[in-house]
């Protein structure tokens, strides 16, 4: 009962905005090309979601259900985010661990990192096309850069803030260097590292949309730019809503994973 009440409370403003928007559209206050009614957007979203053709003979039900444009685009974007993120974070994590644990390595790499870090991933677009041409590779490259720095900076900070008392206790138990790294420093740094992962995924998701506007011919970013060329503003908005939902889904998944991995952490509410 309480939950229903809370939900109704939270839905009040969005529903009012939709009603107002719909009413204005129906009253002809703005052109349907510039600003379509929410009902038109919803209809377009539904059509965008459904498979374009009837199920063919011999085609599996699942393959048919996923043959719609929207699901294909969402899948393509998600694939790029994950692949790019794995590349970026996969490079940032070991480098961050080394830089955090060893002051010499830190001094060696830090100046370069500080010069590169303020360059937004978007600024790499011309270079990405020059180096990698068209298709997925430039996207992976841009997303990897977007994910790299948040993970790197947080990993360094995470390793540096490890409480000395854990190191002393571990040395007292006879722990060697490798075990110290894998079973004490790394887990002690995970709250920071995972915070970096969450920011990194968020950045990766911004970059994927931009990167799809330049070099590929599917994905949510490509689709809304394509829709603009045909003046399909209902499809643009439907695509934007899909981007929002996918972003929310990714962030929820990462946050769930964090809660599971950090279930030991004191600062966490269940």
């Amino acid at each position, binding site marked *: 009962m309480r939950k229903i009440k809370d939900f109704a409370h939270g839905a009040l403003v969005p529903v009012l905005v939709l009603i107002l928007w719909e009413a204005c559209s129906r009253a002809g206050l703005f052109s349907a090309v510039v600003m379509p009614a929410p009902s038109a957007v919803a209809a377009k979203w539904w059509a965008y979601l459904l498979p374009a053709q009837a199920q063919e003979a011999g085609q599996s039900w699942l393959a048919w259900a996923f043959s719609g444009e929207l699901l294909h685009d969402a899948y393509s974007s998600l694939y790029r985010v994950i692949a790019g993120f794995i590349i970026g974070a996969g490079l940032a994590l070991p480098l961050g661990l080394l830089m955090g644990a060893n002051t010499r390595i830190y001094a060696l790499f830090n100046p370069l990192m500080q010069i590169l870090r303020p360059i937004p991933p978007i600024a790499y677009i011309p270079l990405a096309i020059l180096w990698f041409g068209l298709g997925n590779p430039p996207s992976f490259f841009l997303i990897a850069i977007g994910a790299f720095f948040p993970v790197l900076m947080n990993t360094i900070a995470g390793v540096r803030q490890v409480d000395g*008392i*854990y190191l*002393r*206790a571990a040395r007292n*138990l*006879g722990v060697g260097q490798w075990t110290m790294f894998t079973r004490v420093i790394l*887990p*002690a740094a995970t709250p920071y590292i995972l915070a970096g992962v969450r920011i990194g995924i968020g950045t990766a998701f911004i970059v994927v949309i931009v990167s799809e506007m330049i070099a590929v011919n599917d994905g949510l970013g490509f689709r809304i730019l394509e829709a603009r060329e045909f003046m399909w503003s209902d499809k643009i908005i439907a695509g934007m809503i899909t981007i929002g939902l996918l972003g929310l889904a990714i962030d929820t998944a990462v946050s769930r994973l964090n809660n599971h991995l950090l*279930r*030991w952490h004191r600062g966490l509410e269940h």
Partner: protein
Amino acid sequence: MSSPILIDNVQKVFKTPGGDVVALKDINLTIQPGEFVCLLGPSGCGKSTLLNAVAGFQAPSDGQIVIDQKAIRSPGPDRGMVFQEYALFPWMSVAQNIAFGLEVQKKEKAEIGLVVNQLLDLLHLKDFRDRFPKDLSGGMRQRVAIARVLALDSPIMLMDEPFGALDALTRRNLQDELLRIWEKLGKTILFVTHSIEESIYLADRIVVMTYRPGTVKRDQIVAMPRPRDPASPAFNDLKRELGRLVMEEQQRHADAEMKLAAVD
């Protein structure tokens, strides 16, 4: 059989911007196997510095500490330490914390499981084996820390004000547990405290230390049979006597702080 701890003419000087601080000076002590020794004194008397030197965290500036005919140079599992801050690994469950030292030694899984179960029993932690430290009270955490050190099966146990952060009742409870375990397992215990009552309640022998430089002010044997009654006349006589010694040093500590504050 285990060997005594020989503390041989140990000095420790800390270099600070304000000049050298002599934390330990001319410390000579022999701690016999199975002996329960308390280091007693006010803050700044070097009792923790001495314990850290025995643990191998900080080498003495001069002199040496010898166990089993070897001078101590680094920390090791033959001298398990219990910290005031518990220092449990928060990402490991109770059982994993206790098992960790054995895993480091590459003991077999079955053997580790056996030891862990014994220790969970011994310290009444059975119902908490899969909890994380954050879900435990201070007293429970310190039980786990003691179990973690006992798992190493080292002959020597070092304790740095282990019950300092606990409330009085939990503290008495854990003191009794510690005595029970000590009598059962025959460990050598070197125990740092600033509580006079705690030292009399626990120790075979109390080493009272002076404020800077840290030296041995009194090496006191406690002959009372256990369990000791803190309300008994003998207990209180000793408490009064040690209280006088410790408060002299506490006064020097307070004076030094006042002088420092005046300079600022």
